[in-house]
């Protein structure tokens, strides 16, 4: 489970290249900012604003890739590529994978 949520090799490389302290700061920023991105995505879905929806999914994907958050990146990428569907955008699925990812990221911060 943890393996597919965060690719630890990617995270270790980030910490190595940028410094562990900076990597932690980056994670904190992401955990602060991600709820805003998810809110934007939800807003886009309810307004029928496909651009906003796609852009928010794109940002989530881009950030998830930075930390090696493989499952979140995959989910966000799928949503970016398929765009805003006519019915039932997979927002609940995204929120679940984000919640799981955030939990693992927090354990990395505490480590």
């Amino acid at each position, binding site marked *: 489970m943890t393996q597919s949520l965060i690719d630890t090799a990617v995270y270790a490389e980030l910490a190595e290249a*940028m410094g562990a302290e900076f990597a932690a700061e980056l994670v904190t920023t992401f955990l602060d900012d991600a709820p805003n991105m998810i809110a934007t995505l939800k807003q886009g879905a309810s307004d029928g604003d496909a651009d906003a929806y796609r852009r928010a999914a794109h940002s989530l*994907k881009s950030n998830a890739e*930075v930390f090696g958050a493989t499952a979140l990146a995959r989910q966000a990428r799928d949503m970016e590529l398929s765009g805003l569907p006519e019915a039932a955008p997979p927002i609940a699925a995204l929120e679940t994978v984000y919640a799981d990812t955030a939990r693992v990221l927090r354990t990395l911060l505490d480590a």
Partner: protein
Amino acid sequence: MRDAPGRLLIVDDNKVNRLLMTRSVEQLGHTAAVAENGRIAMEMLAQEPFDILLLDIEMPEMDGFEVLEALKADPKLRDLPVIVTSSVEGLDNIVRCIELGAEDYIPKPVNKVLLNARVGASLERKRLNDEQKKLLDRFATVEVAEHLSEGGFAIGGQRLHATILFCDIRDFTAISETMAPEATIDLINTYYTLMFDAVSCQGGIVSLMVGDGLMALFGAPKPIENSARSAVAAAQDMLAMTAALNDERAVVGEPELRIGFGIATGEVVAGYTGTDDRATYTCIGKTVNLAARLEAHTKIVNRDILFDEETLHGLTDQTACTPVPDVRFKGFSEAKRVFAL
């Protein structure tokens, strides 16, 4: 040179990406400023100079494509190197960036080694470009430099309506024989400084300098409202400046300088002549010959400024103009009406 730090502008709507890019750029020894979207980036670019733009594509308000288009349309920013850093999906989007003038594309998450190489190469190219621009400004006039950077260089010509001015210092060879070489060059440079000033103040460009002689173009490469009036005004300004110079020279006992001007207006062929390796912007044609003949004729009739009939037609105030006897110049089948000021 390669190691000299650059100033980069990072444009990204995402907080994590801005932090990460800033840190990466600073680790490479450069300085960075950030903008949250394209609109803010364009405002910052108008305020201060940057060496490189690191540009995201997906952004609200003004996206990366729109930024690339705006840069391309702005002569001052057209040469700013742009490295697109994005996790945008689809090869066609990357191709579109390159087609819109982006120097390079780095996928996100950005690899630091790749970023270092791309930023280094872009900086080097930017500096080379800046050096070339400086050289171009030194050896060509601002107008020709602009003309070149707008239209590119191509051997070839176009027909234009323009006024050509020739001038030289009377008996300069005799004057210079009594002078030290340094003093001769010094005097010529003073003369050129004054003449360039007079010509450019009236919207003309100096196209040729040979010894103490000079050829100036009015109305090429860019059209001006009344090329004849501008050329005559430049000659008059130059005469006034020479009079002031002569006052100074008289004080130290140096001989008086006299300058003759020949001005003709009409159709010319303008363009870059020479070879691909070495060329100059100039005008050729009958109007140019006539201006040269008129300048030579100033010595014969002992007048400062001579011009042709078409130049006369361009002058709003013709009261000070007096006709001199018609002349049949070498290379012209008919006698020309000639006027003096």
